[in-house]
């Protein structure tokens, strides 16, 4: 081993002979063992706040890249091409809610090993404040010029210092037209169907905010409310009137529930609904409905985790997927608008499937509202918890 990794010691000529004989293999191993132990201990100890991660400067790309994102949220072909062209091999891991992402990053305190994370907009300011995200070097992401300015500089990160739009979408529901013969159009219809035809065969998103959203949107209440009266009403409704009819908390019904016809009525995100309907043997059986009168507009963003070990590769990847060609293929795969400029025209020109689940007109967009992370968050999570427990009772 000493041939590959010679130990170099600067010492006086008189001492070298002694050192040489002393520093035999055994001692070297003992020393390196101690050093490794110390490094291990150091790695376990919490790292202090911001500024500890190496900032990307445009140097050589690292050999690996670890992405912690929502499930099935990137086109495998685009990912494979990135690896072929630029080198880094990519590891994926997925979470089901922003809370899960944050809890993991907090628990790891900068040693999570994740490079790219994909939080939803409203969660970003507090993630920055708590030192969970590191600044982007926009010089390394020139393809940001291909983005539609409408989807840049949002409230949560006005100068895109930390994040760039990855995709945006909305929440609605899908129902089985062979089991529900009437037409459903609003959240009130969703609730009514859940309590009747679809009782015991209804799934809702496994995400606290849109779960409460069902009640708020149906009743014309602002879904970012922090009023305890609203929260209590939502809790009472969800745990006693909706929970008994819920059969699953499933954030991705498009994965199995729609293709296997496991449920009759499913709250779902538009892109996931599109994937599920496209994979179903009987696509005509399923009807997508955009939630109304109001619904959610969420925007997920590329960001780099504090303590990322592969910052150069992370920047290169973000830049790679923002290019118009890659963005269009991502859109076709995930079924969400990526925020790229002119992507709607490109998608229509390419004649991609089911674009009515991807693009929405201005009137529809007006009914979509972005969420907010408020002091009621803990209470919201608690209500979601109780709804889950009540559904199993």
């Amino acid at each position, binding site marked *: 081993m000493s041939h590959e990794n010679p130990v170099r010691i600067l010492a006086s000529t008189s001492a070298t002979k002694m050192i040489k004989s002393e520093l035999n293999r055994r001692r070297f191993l003992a020393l390196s063992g101690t050093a490794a132990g110390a490094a291990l201990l150091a790695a376990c100890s919490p790292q202090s706040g911001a500024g500890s991660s190496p900032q990307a400067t445009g140097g050589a790309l690292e050999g690996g890249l670890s992405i912690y994102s929502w499930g099935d949220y990137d086109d495998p072909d685009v990912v494979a091409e990135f690896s072929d062209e630029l080198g880094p091999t990519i590891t994926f891991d997925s979470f089901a*809610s922003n809370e899960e992402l944050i809890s993991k990053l*907090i628990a790891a305190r900068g040693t999570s090993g994740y490079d790219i994370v994909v939080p939803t907009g409203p969660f970003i300011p507090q993630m920055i404040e708590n030192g969970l995200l590191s600044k982007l070097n926009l010089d390394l992401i020139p393809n940001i010029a291909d983005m539609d300015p409408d989807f840049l500089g949002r409230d949560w990160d006005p100068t895109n210092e930390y994040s760039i739009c990855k995709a945006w979408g909305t929440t609605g529901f899908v129902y089985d037209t062979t089991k529900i013969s009437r037409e459903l159009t609003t959240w009130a219809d969703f609730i009514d169907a859940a309590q009747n035809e679809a009782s015991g065969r209804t799934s809702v998103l496994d995400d606290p905010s849109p779960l409460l959203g069902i009640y708020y949107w149906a009743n014309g209440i602002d879904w970012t409310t922090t009023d305890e009266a609203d929260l209590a009403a939502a809790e009472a409704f969800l745990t006693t009137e909706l929970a008994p009819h819920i059969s*699953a908390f499933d954030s991705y019904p498009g994965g199995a529930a729609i293709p296997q*016809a496991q449920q009759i009525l499913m709250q779902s995100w538009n892109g996931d609904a599109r994937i599920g309907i496209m994979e179903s043997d009987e696509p005509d059986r399923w009807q997508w409905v955009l939630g109304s009168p109001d619904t959610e507009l969420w925007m997920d963003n590329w960001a780099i985790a504090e303590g990322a070990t592969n910052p150069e590769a992370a920047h290169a990847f973000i830049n790679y997927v923002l290019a118009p060609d890659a963005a269009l293929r991502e859109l076709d795969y995930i079924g969400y608008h990526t925020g790229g400029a002119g992507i709607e025209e490109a998608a229509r020109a390419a004649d991609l499937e089911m674009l009515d689940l991807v693009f929405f007109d201005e009137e529809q967009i007006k009914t979509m509202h972005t969420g907010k992370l408020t002091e009621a968050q803990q209470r919201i*999570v608690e209500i979601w918890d109780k709804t889950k427990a009540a559904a199993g*009772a």
Partner: protein
Amino acid sequence: MTVTVEDRAAPELGARAAPARPRRRLKLPGFALAIPAWAWLFAFFVAPVALVVWFSFGYKPGIFGTHANDVLSLDRYAEALSPTFFSTFQNTLWVGVVGTLICLVIAIPFSYWLAFKAPVSRRGILLAMVMIPFWTNFLVRTIGWQIILAPSGLLSTALQSIGVLDQPLEILFTRTAVLIGVVYNYIPLMILPMFVAFDRVSLPMREASKDLGAGRWSTFINVTLPLAKPGIIVGILLVYIPLMGDYITATVLGGAKGNMAGQMVANQFQTAQNWALGSAMAVVLVLTILTTVAIAALLSWLATWPLRARQRLVLGDKS
């Protein structure tokens, strides 16, 4: 009678003049041999459990904190046992007890057959058939059942086509589906120790029992079963304990209706980030498991009391 021990090596070496130096003895006390095991147990069992218990007395300080212990209280336990969450513990207990009983009903006859009735030459293959599915990833096996049990899945289509059902099978995302899943997933853990236990019951004992006039049933109850008891108990514990904490099977097959305590704990740690409440729930789960095992042990001891009393053999004249 005297016993002489000859030192055969000494004369051959010609060391008669200088008596052989006594072998150096290890000075460490006997328990030193157990230190690695104790260190392991302490670092990976005692310390983490103590940490969980410690967290359970704390609270969640805010959205971006997971736990704080500056104010200690039992509030998290009150929360964990509040009616909403308590029903989940009841659910878990139901699935745990019924699942273990079903495993028992299947595993005892099967391992008995395997140990005594199956041809010895086939035994290897039969055991492999029990084991091989166990090598497949747990999650994949469970999702496999999701496909089988779906309303438009294999089982439903098959039952409909042979006319047993006239409408799709509505079993997925119910507690029944969770039961099917846990029995399938855990039964090898019960069959293996039971097979070993039955296999070690010596044939001469059973033959002696028959020679003394006991019937098949009587031999089974009075000889085979008591001798195999340790293996049966191990099998029950190996199934019951992990089953109570399982949350994968419940999530995949139970959906909302098969909610189990393991899922609740996972939710607290992952989504709610409330380590304090999650820890309290975990402690309640552990206590539930310990209590039920103790109750089961007591009940079985009481149940076999008359049997033991009847079989007591008194030697000699007491009067």
